[in-house]
Each structure stands twice: as C-alpha cells, then as structure tokens.
C-alpha cells in the first residue's frame, strides 16, 4: 500500500532521543566503570517491574509517533500524482481503527449498550416516548443486553485470560531456554532458578508484571471490539482510544522537555562553574532571572503570545496536526526554560568543586585546552547528576501537563492528552449521575505511568548518587 510518511517535529525529536539512548547504551556496554551502577539498577526488583510498565508505555508512544497520510481512494480519474488524505494518521491509529471509527452519538458508560442520555423515539402507534437508545456499536451483537451482557463479558474475559496466559507461557519458555543456553545449564535448572527468584536479573518479577500487562492488553483488545470498555465522551469518541493516544503526549512532554533544555543547562552550568568570573556572573544572572518568574505564569505568558501569533499568522501552518504539534513542541521548550535553572545551578556547583581537583589542575598544567578539559574531565564526572535529574523530572512533567491543560495553557485543545480529557470531563461534574469514566481513565493511565517512573527513578538515583552508594 502506498502512503505518504509525515515527520512531525516532535516525531523527529523522539527518534533522535531514541537514537541517543541506544547510542548511550552501546557506549556504556563497553565501559566497566559506567556499567557498575546500571548493574545495580538491573538487580532491583522494583526497577524491573517498573521498567516493564514503562516500556509498554514507550512502545505505544512510539507506535503513535510513526505518522503518515493515507492515499485517497481512486475515484476513477487517472491522475499523474496520487492524492493523499489531509488527515495525518499514526501506526497506532491504524492498529486501533475499530476504536477510532466507531463513534457514538454522545456519552455512554463503560460496557454500556445504551446511550447515557434519553432521546425522543417514536413508537409504532405514533406516540412519542423518551428512551435510552441503543448504541450504534457498543454491545451491538447482543439481542437483550440487560440479561446477556454479564455472561458475554465474562466469556470474553475468560477467553482473553486464556489467550494471554498462552502467550505468556510461550514467552516464559523462550526466555528460559535462551537463558539456559547462555548459562549452559539445563532448561529445568534454569526454570527452577527463575521460579525461586535466584537469578541475578529479577526475571520472576519481570515475568509476573508482563503477565499482568499482557492480560490487560489482550482483555482490552478483545472487549473493545464489542464494547466501549471505558465509555465514550461528549462527542461519542471512545475514551479508551483517547487514553491510549494521550500516552504519546505525556511521554513527549516528559522526555522532550528535558532533551531541549539539557544542552543549555549542561553547557552553561559547567561553563559558569569552570570559568567563573564574568561568564559565571552572566550565566547566574540569566538563570536567576528566569527562575524568579513563577513557572506557570511564564508558561502562560509565553503560550498566550504564541496563541496570538498563531491566530494572526494562520498561513504558516499547513495542517491542523502541524499546528497542534508546533504548540506541543513550544510547550516543551517553555517548560524546559522554566525547569532549566535547577539543573544549571547544580552543575555549576559541581563544576566549581571539580575545577579545584588535582587531576584537572594537572591537565591545566600540561596545557590542555579548556574545552578539552571540560569534555574529557568535567563532563563525564557530572553525568550522574544530569541522569538523576532527567529521570526525576520526568514524572513531575507528566503531572504538570494535566495542570497546565486545565489552566488553559497546555497542549492544543485538539491534541489528545490526559489534561485535556480531565478538562473536558470537568464540565460534566455537576451532572447527575456523574460522568466519571473519562476522569477515571485519564487518572489511572497517568497514575500508572507516573508511579512506574517514580519507582524507577528512585532506584536510578540510589544507584548513581555517590553519597548514597557509600552507605
């Protein structure tokens, strides 16, 4: 099939980040002293479980970052060039096509077969009654939803559990075989070691977490073909689909923000501490000024300015997706600018300490250039601070997105994000009975990601912080 690949700015940055991470991993592999703290992370059971969850999110986020435009159906007229739809889709959209296209009229509760609001309906005898109409897609296959639904859901759930256990057993067997082959012991001995939790990498907890995620994924995939498992929102869009799409937004804000601010924070922080004098004064002045403006207000001011700019220059943006993406990227940059001062201050302090070290004084005495000293001697010795702050910042940024969207200065209203989901559902709080599923879905997805990130970052910090390591 032909399609036109579309690389949005954030996509490009995401893949740049991916390449960087992979490159860094390869680099670390070869260096024993760099591997030591990572090995500690690898040994942690908490980190293993958290990592499985995080990788699931990352996988969904990456699938959602491969964008393209599908060709329009041929309408007979022979054209020299193929025409493409203006709608930018991602691989995730294609996978989740059933979720995306099965739109109801308005709100419906999770697993409902009827709409959430009454509608006028004309009976055969001409009288009008107000009933809850059946959904167009959710629970369509049932004749009598009230009686059949529970049994149907149970049966589908049982099938989902069976399938996922089957897959899981396969994965377990393959993994055990591979490990047994590498350790040169029998399959049975390896299985026993995993089962007893005696392996160095905590495979037992990893596989257990995998089973939970797999079960949920298969269950959701099976059931969401028949029902709206998390209900539908005001315009009838599937909430589960929205929550899935929001993953990318959350990840982009959590990672790209640090990526865009990192070069400045690292370079300027080290320069301030290493060169001191005028450079130090200027850099300190810049970051003190930026950090003295309350974060939300600086973001609000910048986003408002951007909004005015976009409204007055609509000609510069081709598609809606492009505009939304630009705003997302801009939000990352602004968040990066507000969060930049803390890391810069830390690095400045560390560089101040390091420049008095004997090995750096020796390098200076040998006439090694300043930038070479920074590159060879200072940068590697502050990398642990950078890494810790990157990992620690992530969860805070994901949470911040929701708050900013609520304030009205977050991502573009057309971008699906947990903040926008919460914001949209907030209007319905006064409704009775309450429309709770959008809120719950957004909070649960966000909570899982943030909790996993928090647990993982704790382990990373403990492994890399030299003060903690000594104890």
């Amino acid at each position, binding site marked *: 099939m032909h399609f036109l690949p579309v690389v949005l700015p954030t996509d490009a940055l995401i893949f740049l980040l991916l390449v960087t991470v992979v490159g860094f991993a390869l680099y670390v592999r070869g260096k024993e002293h760099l591997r030591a703290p990572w090995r500690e992370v690898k040994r942690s059971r908490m980190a293993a479980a958290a990592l499985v969850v995080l990788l699931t999110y990352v996988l969904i986020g990456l699938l959602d970052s491969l964008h393209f435009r599908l060709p329009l159906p041929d309408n007979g007229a022979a054209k020299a060039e193929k025409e493409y739809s203006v709608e930018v889709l991602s691989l995730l959209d294609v996978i989740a096509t059933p979720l995306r296209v099965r739109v109801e009229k308005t709100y419906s509760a999770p697993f409902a077969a009827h709409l959430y609001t009454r509608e006028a309906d004309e009976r055969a005898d001409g009288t009008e009654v107000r009933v809850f109409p059946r959904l167009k897609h959710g629970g369509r296959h049932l004749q009598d939803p009230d009686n059949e639904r529970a049994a149907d859901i149970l049966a589908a759930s049982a099938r989902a559990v069976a399938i996922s256990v089957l897959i899981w057993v396969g994965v377990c067997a393959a993994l055990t075989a591979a490990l047994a082959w590498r350790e040169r012991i029998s399959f049975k001995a390896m299985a026993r070691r995993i089962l007893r939790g005696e392996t160095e990498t905590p495979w037992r907890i990893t596989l257990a977490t995998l089973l939970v995620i797999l079960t949920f994924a298969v269950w959701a995939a099976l059931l969401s073909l028949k029902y709206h498992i998390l209900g539908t929102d005001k315009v009838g869009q599937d909430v589960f689909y929205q929550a899935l799409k929001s993953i990318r937004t959350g990840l982009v804000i959590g990672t790209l923000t640090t990526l865009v601010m990192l070069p400045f924070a690292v370079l300027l922080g080290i320069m301030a501490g290493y060169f001191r004098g005028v450079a130090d004064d200027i850099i300190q*002045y*810049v970051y*003190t*000024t*930026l950090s*003295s*403006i*309350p974060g*939300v*207000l*600086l973001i*609000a*001011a*910048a986003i*408002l*300015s951007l*909004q*005015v*700019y976009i*409204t*007055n220059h609509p000609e510069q943006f081709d598609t809606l997706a492009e505009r939304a993406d630009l705003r997302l990227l801009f939000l990352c940059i602004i968040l990066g600018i507000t969060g930049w001062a803390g890391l810069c201050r830390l690095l400045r302090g560390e560089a101040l300490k390091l420049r008095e070290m004997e090995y750096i004084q020796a390098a200076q005495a040998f006439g090694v250039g300043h930038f070479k000293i920074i590159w060879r001697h200072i940068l590697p010795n502050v990398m642990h601070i950078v890494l810790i702050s990157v990992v620690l910042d992530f*969860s805070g940024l994901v*949470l911040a997105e*929701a*708050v900013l969207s*609520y*304030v*009205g*200065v977050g991502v573009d209203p057309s971008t699906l994000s947990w903040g926008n989901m*919460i914001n949209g559902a*907030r209007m319905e*709080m006064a409704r009775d009975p*309450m429309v709770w599923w959008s*809120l719950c879905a957004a*909070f649960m997805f*966000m*909570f899982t990601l*943030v*909790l996993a990130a*928090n*647990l993982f970052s*704790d382990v990373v910090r403990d492994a890399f912080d030299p003060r903690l390591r000594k104890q």
Partner: protein
Amino acid sequence: MIAYITRRILYAIPILIGVNLLTFALFFVVNKPDDMARVHLGVKHVTPQAIEKWKAERGYDKPLVFNNSASGAAQFTDTIFFRKSVLLFVFDFGRSDDGRDIGLDIRERMWPSLAIALPALFIGLLANITFALLMAFFRATYIDVWGVVLCVVLMSISGLFYIIGGQYLISKLLHIVPISGYDSGVQSFKFILLPVIIGVVSGIGSGSRWYRTIFLEEIGKDYVRTARAKGLSELRVLFYHVLKNAMIPILTGVVVVLPLLFMGSLIMESFFGIPGLGSYTIDAINAQDFAIVRAMVFLGSVLYIAGLILTDISYTLVDPRVRLG
C-alpha cells in the same frame, strides 16, 4: 545586618529589571499591540478604526520605547515601555484590558488567597513532620519501607485527582461543606475547610518523604551517637536533638514560599470558586487579559525574590554557623 539586607535588596534590582524586559519582550515585541487588539475584537471583520480605538482606550497606541513626537523626558516616559513596564517598579499596575484597577483588585483578592494558603501550609507542615518522624523512628523496619512506598504512591497521584475526588466525596456525597464559593468573616470557615484539607493531603506524599531524608541525614551524625551514648531514650533523641537540628533546612524551605502564598493556588482557587489571586490569574489567562498577566508575572517574581532574601536572613538567624557574608 542592615548592610547585608540592603545589599541583598540591591542585588534583586537587576533581576527584576531582567524580568521586566523579558515580559515586555513577550507581550509587546513578539506580538504588536495591533495583534492583541485583533484577538480581542475578533480576528475577522475588524476595522482599523476599531483597532485604533481599542489601543487608545488602553494606552497601547504609544510608541514602544521612544516617542519622537514628544519632547524632553516625555520622549521616554510617554511610551508603552515606560507606562506599562517601568511603572510596575512602583507597583503601579495600571488598568486591566477591561478597565478595572489591577492594584485595587490585587489588594482585595490577596486575603482570600492567604486564608487558604496559610493554614494549608502550616497544617501540612505539622502533618509532614509527624509522618516523617514516625518513619524515621521506625527506620529500616517494614513500617518505614511501606511508609515510603505509600509516599511514592501518594506523590504519583495528580493534584487534580485530589481536588476532584475530595469535592465529590466530601461535598457531593457526604454534604459536609459546600462544593465551592466564598464568604467573608467567620462564615468563610466552611468554604476554607475543604481546600485546606485537600492542600494538606496532596502535599503529604512528597513532603513527608523529603523530611524523612532530612531526619535520616541528621540521625547519622555524631552528636546523635553521643546523645545515645549518654543513655538518652530514642524518643528524646529524636524529638529533642534531631528535630531541633533538622528544623534548619525545614524552616528555610518554608520561609522561601511564605511571600508566594499571597499569589494563592491557581488550580485550587478556580475549582473552589475562591475569589483570590490564583483564580484572578486564571480568569485573566482565559480572557487573554495581558495587562493582568503581566502584573502577576512581575508581582510573582518580586515575591519570589523576597522569599529568597528572607531565606538568607532566616539562615543567619537560626544557624549560628552561617555568618553574614
């Protein structure tokens, strides 16, 4: 001491000038006043006359930094930069885009903000210290381990969830206090209660975990070992010696946020309909009232810098090791 404080205040001036220039650039250079007018009046079907009128009413019709048509000092004072940015230094906030006196609004609205932020801060402080001491007392036991895990779980919940959940549970289901609103005097208590509780609960996770590390750091020090060697009970060591010394970082951490309490909490106030500065700011952002946002940015950074100065002063007061430098 006075010389030290004066010097610190003088240091603040270039930073405030920087903030001022930055906001000026954001609001008037990136987007011209014409653009703002167009956004406010609706982008389409807007006549140049209407734009001119809108600008003249709000004083945006002057040149940006240099007025050619005026003479003498007025060449610099009769400009947008002077009127809208320089005058902020004397706390002359001017009028909002819909004609209200911003300075008056701020003076009126900072009290409700304070009425919520202040109790939330101090009750939260008390709760955090209590939990942190508890975990430090039971350190390296299951109580401590699970306490930390609980803290991480509480930290991972979005602040919005606490607010929405609290409102739903306490106001909608249990009908203990009204969902939102505000009243003056004693009547305000029932409106303040819920926001304060939610403010405390949402901060407990990160707060007690942070204080726990401070306590554990103190517990590892030599004087604690000496105190134990003298035969003091663990409780006395913890409450008398450790708590007193750990108060230094805790206190200074509190002092730095004290001035910012005036600004209130954006989210909390708008959810509970409290007429404080937080909801004022949010309303301004939603209405795209640039004058108010500009005033709040400046006020926020003044208060933040005031907090930093207070922190430094409080350091010298509570920690005899710190000398004025």
